């Protein structure tokens, strides 16, 4: 996609940079078309810049002390990727893999910092973005401590809603972007437990499942599990 006439209204470069700077971002980005289930960068790689998802869906993985792979984030259309590498020690603490075919734009740190300096709305957005990420990351950990499966599923669903949104905004049909097995990995519970929790949620009227699609009926109830 060309930044100067990009149709993606969710992209934060599109949204928070002055239109005079869209030419700059178009000129300096490196475009990559990546098919599904491919690695974008790996844990331990040197950080030289950051990525924006022009279109598609991505999962972010963290290998824990036991060597087990945890999904710590999912990211969609117009969202930033690889920002966990931005602070000092310059090596990615995580890996990123595509869930579906995705178009990705890469900016070097230098170019991105120029964009930040020139676009105060972008700096403000990025600050709030990191604040949000800190919040969500700790929420996920909190749910993990509490060891309640309901809370774990609720956090995972909220993170998917935040990243991918809905296929149908009116009906609240969730754009899940992955299968239930992967969702159970994201929530860090077993697949049977996920099925049981989703069934409980359905009985409580929090979600509905129709033709393999998940409908979120009561987002407030999901929020109440995690706060």
């Amino acid at each position: 996609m060309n930044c100067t006439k990009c149709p993606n209204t969710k992209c934060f470069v599109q949204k928070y940079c002055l239109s005079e700077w869209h030419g700059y971002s178009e000129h300096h980005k490196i475009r990559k078309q990546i098919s599904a289930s491919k690695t974008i960068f790996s844990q331990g790689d040197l950080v030289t810049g950051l990525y924006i998802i022009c279109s598609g869906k991505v999962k972010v993985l963290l290998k824990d002390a036991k060597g087990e792979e945890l999904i710590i984030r999912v990211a969609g259309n117009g969202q930033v990727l690889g920002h966990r590498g931005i602070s000092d020690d310059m090596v990615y603490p995580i890996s990123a893999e595509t869930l579906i075919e995705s178009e990705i734009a890469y900016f070097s740190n230098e170019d991105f910092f120029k964009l930040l300096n020139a676009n105060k709305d972008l700096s403000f957005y990025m600050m709030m973005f990191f604040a949000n990420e800190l919040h969500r990351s700790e929420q996920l950990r909190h749910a993990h401590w509490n060891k309640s499966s309901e809370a774990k599923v609720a956090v995972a669903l909220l993170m998917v809603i935040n990243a991918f949104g809905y296929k149908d905004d009116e009906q609240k049909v969730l754009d899940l972007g992955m299968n239930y097995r992967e969702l159970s990995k994201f929530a860090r519970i077993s697949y049977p437990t996920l099925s049981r929790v989703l069934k409980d949620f359905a009985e409580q009227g929090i979600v509905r499942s129709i033709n393999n699609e998940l409908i979120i009926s009561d987002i407030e109830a999901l929020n109440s599990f995690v706060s």
Partner: protein
Amino acid sequence: MKRKCETCRHTNCFINKFCSSEWKPLITFHKTTLNYDGGDVIFREGDNVEGIFQIYSGKIKVVANYQGVNERVVRLANSEQLLGHRGFGGQMIYPVTAIALESSQVTFIPVNTFYSAIKANPELAFNLMMFFADELKSSEKNIRTKNKMTAKEKVISAINTIIEAFGFDERDPQILSFTPSRKDIASIAGTTYETVIRVLSALEKSGCIVQEGKTLRILDWERLGLNDKGFC
């Protein structure tokens, strides 16, 4: 008495460091100065976020699950640092509780003033972004390292956290300038009170530290490191 940002000599304060001189009087105008005694709650988990705090003097602990089963100290904050930034993001509700460890003076800046200051001072915006990025990183690093630590390593790591936050006493550079209660050390380490008592006396026996009443004397900080050879 309200302190003035434009004449403040706290050079590590984000406002002082990254706001233009035109902006400082404006912040002075909008801010309030609050005084707390040790043990006072500054904000509570579940409260709405109405602004950001800047610590002028004193020491503060930030606790998740305050007085609950899983109480954890997530941060120790010292003067010239920001407080309450964990409330930004999400639904603008504090996920943590802040409690003064000793008498502290804290500046409160309303959220609208804070946002305008960020938008008007690009350097402030950039550095706040990097600050949050660092916080995210250290928060996640904690998950990975704490999981595989032994009880002893957790307590040593907690002592290191306290030293990094508050440093040593100026008059006696082996004594911690501030030692939290043993119960607080347990919540920093993510272990139990009994374990802290046990590990501290083991460290004392091996000649690494001396317990002088409530305070700790560190005989050899190098040896109290978390690497293999630095182990007590």
